[in-house]
């Protein structure tokens, strides 16, 4: 008798275990990943998840938060900090950190890189550290004013063999040009990659090698390739390392091909036109899309008067060979540092009854270039329009520039004009200064008296780029409205004038080898208020089917000395948006250290939360065990505010 009951119990228990296992299997299968910097190789920054909706987003709470310890506001390293030998003396100060890393969620793990060039692997539902890996990179600002990192990359074999190590890998680059490969499950170096898991990218830095090729942006991974671009300092010298992109074997690190942005003649007298931002891949067409930056030096082109066709362009390469399939220059003879600075977003547009394989390239100049990604031809017409000539001896600005009438540029052709309040409280400083500057609207060349440049090198649109809802063709982009002053200084006077070195926000940049240095300033009054009318930052949506703007609203809040300015003023933004299928936009980016959710239909803020520093990267959106998470790296960037942090914070709905 007893046995019947017992067997019934055993049977029920066994069935429960089977059901539980099945459920776990289902949950595991339900994991929705964020496996690359931009969410996917098409750089759509789109998640199909719908658990968090406009109706319930107000209930979001902190699911977990973790601090990596890898943060510096500048100054001596804190005692007990995980440290490494500085290159210059035992008490060398640490540079400030800039952390623009998008977390990845893949292999049931959250991965992130830090500005101290460490990798962290975290549990996706608790944030607990599974493992960490230290590159032991030297913590010096070798090519940038700050220690920077934009995250890590992930690769896995087509059919991973669980018995073998390094079938799944994480990659991180360093400012001193080393690319590390570690096992994604254990964090142990992959010995078969380069030498003991490290490839020295600088071995290919063979021309004008004045500084290392800094790997701050994680490689773009496709098939068994790693596509590696690099960052440098194209404001320091006229002649620099010429721009290259390296395709490496994901397993061994062997070089497969190299893309050269400059020909030999240009490389001898200029440099850079490098790719420092993320890239996009069209799997169907086997194309790799590169955002190519401006040639060196940034603000004077007298040494490179011949056209450099790939400079400041979006360029499509054949994935397997690295050969140029097409290229479209976005700025001719760039003397404004208008680097193409984000991966183009790939999207098929339904227009006039046809499906057009398109891409949308955002830009510092505020234009959205909508191109056919097979050919590079414009989907909406691009005009060559005349722009002002340079008055600087030795310089010759391009007489025309590509101009995009549709979609409407996020910034106007003329600067917004003097802000009365800033002018009054500075006793007319703003209007007096504006009257002394050269101002002929968009593409006013740098000058000896100082040129009012709008939009300037801050942008416009920065490296976050835009996001798209592929079902509706709605494209969303945040942008800044910043006015800067470019003043060229003859070499003989430069050394006397250059009392402050160049920082992220401006200063003096030598352009050694050119007849001029440059002073770059943001147009502020002596109290630190912008001299131009707000809003200083906004977010806008476009219908890619028509090119029409759907809405455009101020975004974020300026915070100065702790005081929050009116919401209608908006904020300069760095970092980009992410769209979810439920009709939400998630974005950090603003200088007030808030992260927000907006209604995709209207741009209205539906939820916001304070984090410990501006979240200047893209958030990652993923689902794990049936629960949707939105994760931000709140690292800060000195362009916005000196506030920095090492916080990674995940939000989810309550259980």
């Amino acid at each position, binding site marked *: 008798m007893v046995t019947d009951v017992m067997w019934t119990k055993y049977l029920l228990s066994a069935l429960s275990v089977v059901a539980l296992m099945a459920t776990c299997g289902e949950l595991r299968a339900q994991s929705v990943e964020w496996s690359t910097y931009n969410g996917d190789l098409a750089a759509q920054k789109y998640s199909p998840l719908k658990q968090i909706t406009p109706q319930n987003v107000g209930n979001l709470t902190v699911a977990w938060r973790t601090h990596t310890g890898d943060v510096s506001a500048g100054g001596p390293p804190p005692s007990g900090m995980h440290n490494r030998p500085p290159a210059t003396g035992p008490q060398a100060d640490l540079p400030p950190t800039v952390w623009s890393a998008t977390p990845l969620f893949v292999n049931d793990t959250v991965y992130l890189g830090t500005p101290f060039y460490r990798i962290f692997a975290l549990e996706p539902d608790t944030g607990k550290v599974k493992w960490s890996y230290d590159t032991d990179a030297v913590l010096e600002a070798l090519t940038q004013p700050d220690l920077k990192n934009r995250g890590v990359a992930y690769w896995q074999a087509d059919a991973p063999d669980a018995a073998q190590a390094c079938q799944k890998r994480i990659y991180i680059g360093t400012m001193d040009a080393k690319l590390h490969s570690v096992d994604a499950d254990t964090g142990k170096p992959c010995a078969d990659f380069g030498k003991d898991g490290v490839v020295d990218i600088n071995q290919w830095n063979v021309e004008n090698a004045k500084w290392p090729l800094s790997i701050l942006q994680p490689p773009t991974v496709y098939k068994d390739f790693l596509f590696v671009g690099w960052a440098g300092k194209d404001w320091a010298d006229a002649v620099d390392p010429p721009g290259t992109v390296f395709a490496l074997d994901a397993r061994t690190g062997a070089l497969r091909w190299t893309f050269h942005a400059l020909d030999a003649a240009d490389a001898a007298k200029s440099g850079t036109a490098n790719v420092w931002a993320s890239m996009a891949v069209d799997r169907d067409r086997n194309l790799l899309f590169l955002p190519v930056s401006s040639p060196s030096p940034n603000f004077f082109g007298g040494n490179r008067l011949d056209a450099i066709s790939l400079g400041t362009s979006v360029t499509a390469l054949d994935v397997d060979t690295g050969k140029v399939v097409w290229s479209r220059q976005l700025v001719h003879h760039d003397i404004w540092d208008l680097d193409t600075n984000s991966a183009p977003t790939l999207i098929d547009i339904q227009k006039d009854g046809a499906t057009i394989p398109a891409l949308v390239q955002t830009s510092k100049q505020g234009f959205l270039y909508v191109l056919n990604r097979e050919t590079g031809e414009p989907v909406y017409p691009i005009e060559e329009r005349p722009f002002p000539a340079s008055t600087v001896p030795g310089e010759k600005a391009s007489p025309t520039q590509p101009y995009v009438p549709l979609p409407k540029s996020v910034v106007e052709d003329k600067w917004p004009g003097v802000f009365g309040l800033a002018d009054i409280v500075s006793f007319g400083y703003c209007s007096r200064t504006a009257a002394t500057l050269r101002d002929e609207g968009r593409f006013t060349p740098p000058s000896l008296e100082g040129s009012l440049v709008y939009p300037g090198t801050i942008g416009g649109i920065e490296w976050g780029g835009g996001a798209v809802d592929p079902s509706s063709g709605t494209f969303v982009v945040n942008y800044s409205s910043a006015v800067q002053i470019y003043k060229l200084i003859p070499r003989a006077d430069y050394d006397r004038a250059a009392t402050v070195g160049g920082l992220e926000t401006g200063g003096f940049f030598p352009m050694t080898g050119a007849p001029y240095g440059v002073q770059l300033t943001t147009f502020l009054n002596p109290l630190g208020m912008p001299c131009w009318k707000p809003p200083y930052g906004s977010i806008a949506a476009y219908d890619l089917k028509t090119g029409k703007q759907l809405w455009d609203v101020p975004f974020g809040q300026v*915070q100065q*000395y*702790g*005081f*929050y*300015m009116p919401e209608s003023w908006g904020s300069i933004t760095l970092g980009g948006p992410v769209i979810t299928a439920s009709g939400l936009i998630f974005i950090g980016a603003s200088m*007030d*250290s808030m992260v927000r959710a907006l209604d995709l239909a209207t741009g209205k803020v539906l939820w916001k939360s*304070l984090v*410990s520093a501006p979240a200047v990267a893209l958030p990652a959106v993923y689902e794990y065990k049936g629960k949707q998470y939105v994760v931000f790296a709140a690292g800060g960037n000195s362009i916005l505010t000196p506030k920095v942090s090492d916080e990674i914070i995940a939000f989810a709905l309550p259980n």
Partner: protein
Amino acid sequence: MTKISGILDDAGAALMVLASLGGLIVSIFNYFNPDSGIAGEPGTLLVIASTILLALFGMALGKLNTGFLRSFFIVSSILNIAGTSFAGYLLHSQTLVILMLVSFLGWILHVFRRRRAFA
């Protein structure tokens, strides 16, 4: 003892002192709390200073019945309350704003209280 009982006799001044001390505590907490959004900011230091000053003004008013000094502190206090409230609003420190409203209530009670008879 005399000083303390003098302040307590004046409920308005006492309320001003208590509210400003509350504002001081809140502001010090905000200054050192990394999650406040205004930690380490000059604006937060400013309201720390202004709440200290307001507490001193309240104590002074508790002792003074007439004269130029009383008028001076009454005007200074209301300017301080208005300025600190506005600063609290811009700092997104709602608690500080509420405490300044309480302080304002104390200021009203003090200004319109029944004067003590002079000996």
